[in-house]
């Protein structure tokens, strides 16, 4: 299967690039700092340990875990976009695409092959980083957040969506324009998400409704922030969930429909990427 040949090539290329190495080293550095920070905070708290405050202790652990996964989500997004943003446009530009496309291969196999290669890379990165954060916390304190697998799966889906949009842009845009597009969309989703969250704190009904609407619309344009919010909702402790106050989540969280929408969004973007690449003059 040519699609697997391209997937293997893409994975190999990404893994030999300095950018992935840099992302891995930074990731490891983050894990080290994170682990040390967690250890010392826990030690401080345990010094004045009072058995009546077990609940509070778990809240702190949960908060720190969410902060860690928040960073992992961000790093995964950056790493995904930076490694994949020039994979199509760069190969079209340099001409390396010519020897690939002139083989007995169909163009969709190149797009899907590249997608699979990067998806494999994202998966490994996320297992390492997300597993690292959760593992460190478990090893130090024995704490396990609610729904860790579901949360990481949503972070993973977020990475895959950014990957797909990055491939889609690469079929028609230059590398630079594509980078602007993908980070732009990511930024729009991020701002929209925060507007929605702030809106949900405000008591004034008309203001908050407008803010929520803005959030919903930006989530439809780019569901990445919505997926994070849902991931945070999955992981948050029952107490925070009841209070509805946390920098990482809110009492309005995206529904299962939004997850379904994100999956459809991904499939549609991939189909469009294949279609555009099929028509592209190389």
């Amino acid at each position, binding site marked *: 299967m*040519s699609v697997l*040949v391209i997937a293997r*090539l893409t994975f190999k*290329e990404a893994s*030999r690039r300095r950018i992935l190495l840099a992302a891995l080293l930074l990731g490891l550095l983050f894990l080290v700092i994170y682990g040390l920070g967690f250890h010392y905070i826990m030690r401080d708290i345990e010094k004045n340990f009072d058995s009546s405050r077990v609940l509070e202790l778990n809240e702190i652990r949960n908060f720190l875990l969410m902060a860690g996964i928040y960073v992992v989500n961000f790093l995964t997004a950056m790493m995904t976009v930076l490694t994949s943003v020039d994979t199509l446009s760069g190969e079209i530009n*340099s*001409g*390396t695409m*010519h*020897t*690939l*496309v*002139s*083989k*007995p*291969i*169909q163009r969709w196999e190149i797009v899907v092959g590249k997608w699979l290669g990067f998806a494999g890379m994202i998966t490994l990165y996320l297992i390492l980083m997300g597993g690292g954060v959760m593992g460190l916390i478990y090893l130090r304190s024995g704490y396990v957040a609610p729904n860790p697998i579901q949360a990481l799966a949503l972070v993973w889906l977020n990475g895959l969506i950014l990957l797909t949009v990055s491939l889609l842009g690469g079929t028609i845009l230059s590398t630079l324009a594509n980078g602007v597009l993908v980070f732009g969309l990511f930024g729009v989703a991020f701002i929209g998400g925060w507007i929605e969250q702030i809106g949900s704190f405000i008591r004034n009904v008309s203001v908050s409704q407008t803010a929520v609407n803005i959030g919903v619309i930006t989530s439809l344009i780019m569901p990445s922030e919505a997926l994070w919010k849902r991931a945070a909702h999955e992981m948050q402790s029952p107490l925070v969930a009841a209070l509805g106050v946390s920098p990482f989540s809110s009492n309005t969280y995206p529904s299962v429909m939004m997850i379904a929408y994100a999956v459809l969004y991904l499939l549609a973007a991939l189909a469009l990427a294949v279609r555009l690449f099929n*028509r592209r*003059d*190389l």
Partner: protein
Amino acid sequence: MYTYPVKVSNSPSLVIETRHLRKVFGDKVAVEDLSLQVERGEVFGFLGPNGAGKTTSVKMLLSLTAPSSGEGSLFGAPLSDPRVRSKVGFLPEHFRFHDWLRAEEFLQLHADLYRMPRDLAEKRIVELLDLVGLTPHAQKKLRQYSKGMLQRIGLAQALLNQPELVILDEPTSGLDPVGRRLVRDIIRDLRQKGTTVFLNSHLLSEVEITCDRVAFIKHGEVVRTSTLQTLVEGELSVEIRARNLSPQALEGLSRWGRNVRADGEHLTLTVDGEADLPDINRYLVEQGADVFALRPQHISLEDLFIQIVGTDGGL
């Protein structure tokens, strides 16, 4: 727009056939009207100045670019059919490859894309590395390769699947004489094996040595197709040194040839073939001229190229 009632024949002797292929980028016409027929086993030269649409034509043959109109086939199958490309080898113009791969990995990748079984591919890779003289550099990354080495590995890549058709886009431009010699030898080998070669080039001396038949392209249109033999043997330039030649006698020479020019006792003209030479000599003597020399000179492909395409280079 009127579209031709295009029919692509399935004649098995035709390896490449195109009918009125046309490619437009925006309002720029890259290829106006390309109709070609390349037969099995021939080495076909595709000649034209820079910007005449040669590379775009090659890209259409390989379906890298879709034609705006017209139709074509490789081995009787439509150009857009990827299966047919399993019989084709291609060396692109700038030979840019995945330069982070080692030479051997690079060939293995392309063997995989040709869906060659592993054991066959391994054998073939050893053979080809030897053929292009890169065996000692098989473990080097392509990034460390010189331009000449990249061209060699690119050629090896184009021959992996023992193709029935090899398309070479400017394979020798910017290469040293040793590299050109290698390309020439490989083309000769391919011809002996009955492989069809489509050579896109503006290096006429190369074409003169290697090709059976050539097409001249100008402004994205084939202006002339001919076998190299009739091209080069047919037309002759004759150089004459004679004295006492009257202006009337000079005029009379135009009966045999074109481009009659006189410069003192030196005369040049172009004739259709060698058969005319004795007649010209007889005529000159009858006219009372003293003929010292009458030298036929075959026209070089370069002269012909300029005659056909024009000195403006088709711009």
